[in-house]
């Protein structure tokens, strides 16, 4: 761990022993972070390590349970986002806080338009001139008069950064800023980060891509499962060391792999293409097999899941279930064909938060549980729900508890229970353990093993390599809409998957 420095104010930001608990999870346990003036500080860790929670505390979006925050050596109380802004902290989230229908200049100065500008006579020239000056400081070629909705993601990000600068930010936090950028755009962003550095602004950079850490960061702090692990200068560390710090555990103990008998192909994707998302995808899932679909965010894994499940339509290609081509044009048809989907974002795409656990579990089969598809047979429903609550060990006081009151892990188990109740032949699981605690994670992995034993084919999308390596029988890697490589369980390693996922090596069946 790094040495306490005697020099006062060397650090623009110090977060000491920050603790934060959410219902069911200790998100942060005595986590510390020290950021020097004008440095690029990378914050890395697996999903659920606590990076975002730590940054939300810094931004005043969450209160912390314990610990203190010092800015320029002085203790501060960050009770809300406005205080954070006043202290010179700016956050750039993955979803932008921009008003799409306003111009770039108006967005930069939003909320601070001088009174005269607020009225009918908006002095556009003065406004645009100030914006132009700011954009020039960042060497940005964006027209201040352009409406934000017409900008690319990269340009929107630039506007956010310009806005942060106009707020006299000393510390800018970027949460996965490159996840939606092309390579060229990433380069531009990195140049801009260098300009920010020159102006003495500290940048906290959250990323999953370790290459970027080495390309841009001065120092790196690693978190794991809500704990502080280490802070290192970038010149004294290498990629495998960071990975081992992030993972820090024996894979075999966390993901006990169940041996299953693998049967015939149950789901086959043939030559599927979709403009701008998928190119010539061929994929098979067999009975009792867990296929891990790896790749970076934006590689097209979720797009593929959406096509298979009938949410989006493909431009060409076909889906075969049990060897028969099935035209699937909507999720209910997919369900009739024996597919199930545990989507990426359980709150947005899966749960009815204001409804009880019971309704959430029985939703996909409620018609089948009803007399003439109409009148619910309550006895049957209650039995089914009770069975799955028991089988999945969902911790809830009763089946009538509202789902919003459950912890993340139990919510996810509720979603999985819904699909188990529908007894699918193939279950697609998109990031099945994102943002849930370690214990629930292990339970879900064990459950997947059991499902496979019962003959269900599972297609699991995951961004966590240890999970992919631990759970899958076969691993398929995607990069920019194509399958770049396929591995057998025995031959895959983190390095090989990473290489295929970043497109550095292309061979294997995917062409």
């Amino acid at each position, binding site marked *: 761990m790094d040495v306490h420095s005697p020099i006062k104010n060397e650090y623009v930001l110090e977060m000491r022993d920050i603790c934060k608990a959410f*219902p069911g999870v200790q998100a942060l346990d005595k986590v510390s972070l020290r950021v020097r003036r004008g440095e690029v500080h990378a914050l890395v860790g697996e999903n659920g390590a606590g990076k975002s929670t730590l940054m939300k505390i810094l931004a005043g979006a969450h209160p912390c349970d314990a610990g203190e925050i010092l800015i320029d050596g002085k203790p501060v109380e960050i009770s809300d986002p406005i205080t954070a802004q006043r202290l010179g902290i700016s956050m750039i989230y993955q979803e932008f806080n921009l008003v799409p229908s306003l111009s770039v200049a108006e967005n930069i100065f939003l909320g601070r338009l001088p009174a005269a500008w607020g009225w009918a006579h908006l002095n556009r020239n003065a406004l645009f001139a100030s914006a132009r000056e700011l954009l020039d400081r960042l060497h940005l070629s964006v027209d201040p008069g352009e409406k934000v909705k017409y900008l690319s993601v990269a340009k929107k990000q630039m506007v956010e950064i310009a806005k942060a600068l106009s707020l006299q930010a000393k510390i800018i936090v970027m949460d996965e800023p490159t996840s939606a950028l092309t390579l060229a755009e990433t380069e531009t962003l990195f140049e801009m980060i260098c300009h920010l550095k020159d102006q003495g602004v500290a940048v906290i950079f959250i990323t999953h891509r370790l290459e970027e850490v080495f390309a841009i960061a001065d120092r790196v702090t690693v978190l794991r499962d809500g704990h502080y*692990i280490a802070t290192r200068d970038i010149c004294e560390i290498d990629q495998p060391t960071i990975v081992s710090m992030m993972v820090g555990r024996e894979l075999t103990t966390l993901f006990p792999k169940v041996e299953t008998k693998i049967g015939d192909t149950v789901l086959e994707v043939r030559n599927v293409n979709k403009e701008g998302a998928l190119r010539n995808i061929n994929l098979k899932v067999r009975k009792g097999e867990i296929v891990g679909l790896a790749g970076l965010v934006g590689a097209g894994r979720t797009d593929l899941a959406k096509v298979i499940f009938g949410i989006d339509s493909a431009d060409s290609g076909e889906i075969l279930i049990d060897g028969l081509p099935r035209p699937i044009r909507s999720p209910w048809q997919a369900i009739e064909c024996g597919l199930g989907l545990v989507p990426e974002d359980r709150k947005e795409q899966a749960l009815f938060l204001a409804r009880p656990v019971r309704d959430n579990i029985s939703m996909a089969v409620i018609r089948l549980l*009803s007399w003439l*598809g*109409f009148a619910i047979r309550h006895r049957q429903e209650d039995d089914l729900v009770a069975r799955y609550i028991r089988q999945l060990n969902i911790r809830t006081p*009763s089946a009538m508890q509202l789902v919003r009151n459950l912890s993340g892990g139990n919510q996810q188990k509720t979603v999985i229970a819904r699909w188990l109740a529908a007894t699918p032949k193939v279950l697609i699981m998109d990031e099945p353990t994102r943002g849930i605690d370690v214990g629930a994670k292990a339970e879900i992995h064990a459950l997947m093993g059991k499902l496979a034993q019962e003959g269900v084919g599972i297609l699991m999308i995951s961004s966590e390599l240890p999970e992919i390596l631990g759970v899958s029988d076969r691993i398929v890697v995607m990069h920019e809409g194509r399958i770049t490589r396929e591995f057998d369980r025995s031959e895959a390693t983190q390095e090989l998957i990473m290489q295929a996922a970043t497109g550095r090596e292309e061979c294997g069946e995917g062409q």
Partner: protein
Amino acid sequence: MKEHAEPITCVAKPARVGFYARFLDWIGRQIFQMGVLVGFLALCVFFTLTSPYFLSFDNMMNVARQISMIGIIAVGMTFVIIAAGIDLSVGSVVGLAGCITAGLLRDGIPMPVAILTGLSFGLISGIANGFLVTKGGLPPFIATLASMSVWRGLALTYTQGYAIFGLPKGFGFIGRSYMGPVPTPVVIMFVVFAIGYYVLNHTAFGRYVYAVGGNIQAAKLSGVHVDRTLLAVYGLSGFFSGLSGIILASRLMSGQGAAGTGYELDAIASCALGGISLMGGEGNLVGTIIGAFIIGVLANGMTLLNVSSFYQMMVKGLVIMLAVFVDLKLKARREKK
């Protein structure tokens, strides 16, 4: 480096769906309905103390009959609002359905045919709203605002601004007769309440209504036929509005182009008073029933106290504001818990 901490899991109780647990849960849910119920009872006590006639059986039946038309519409409205929609066209459908039925009766068409035609119009108008919302992609507010205008215009055109009189005497049965001591419209209202309650709480369709309103994307991904559900929901609302229009025409023994004007607001207010979230996905029909009764009691009580109808409108508005405000605060408190 530090050791892993044990993950803190929430209170682990064995999941039991016993009778007792369900009963407790049911009581818990009823209590949140109590806020409105308490307000309703307070209102009744106040009017009882200020007007001796208020609590009499005759007056109670009078109140129930006055709200029966709104109450029936509010049942459909509850479905629409829980599905995260809104139906502003109900008042106009009341008017036009009444006029169609009255017109056919005046021309000597047999009563069952005339009534069925009026009901069918209601159903079709609702399904049309549903199409505009699902296939057309119009926001429910705009779609039903437009059809509200169209149907009202059509009703006024059809009647040329005059009331349609000369209806057969038997038609008065629906709006004017009694079943035992209870007015027929009140009986119809309670039957509609009962059907609505059953459908919303004990059928697959009811579940879908909550699902679509609560999280439309999740509903789709769970295999719910979202469009069909919405068509049915708007269809129900239209059908009940048609029914309400026929009762009103029977009460008035005439078809009037302007009948039912403003009913949409009272129906929406009943839902809001009953704690149905306008964001969709939440609420129960019991709340709507109480809400409708609050509106009825308020109007009746104030009339008994000789309050001018202008003041009545103001008081009604203020009561709605206060009730919804208290309801929101109670809900926020419950969520913090």
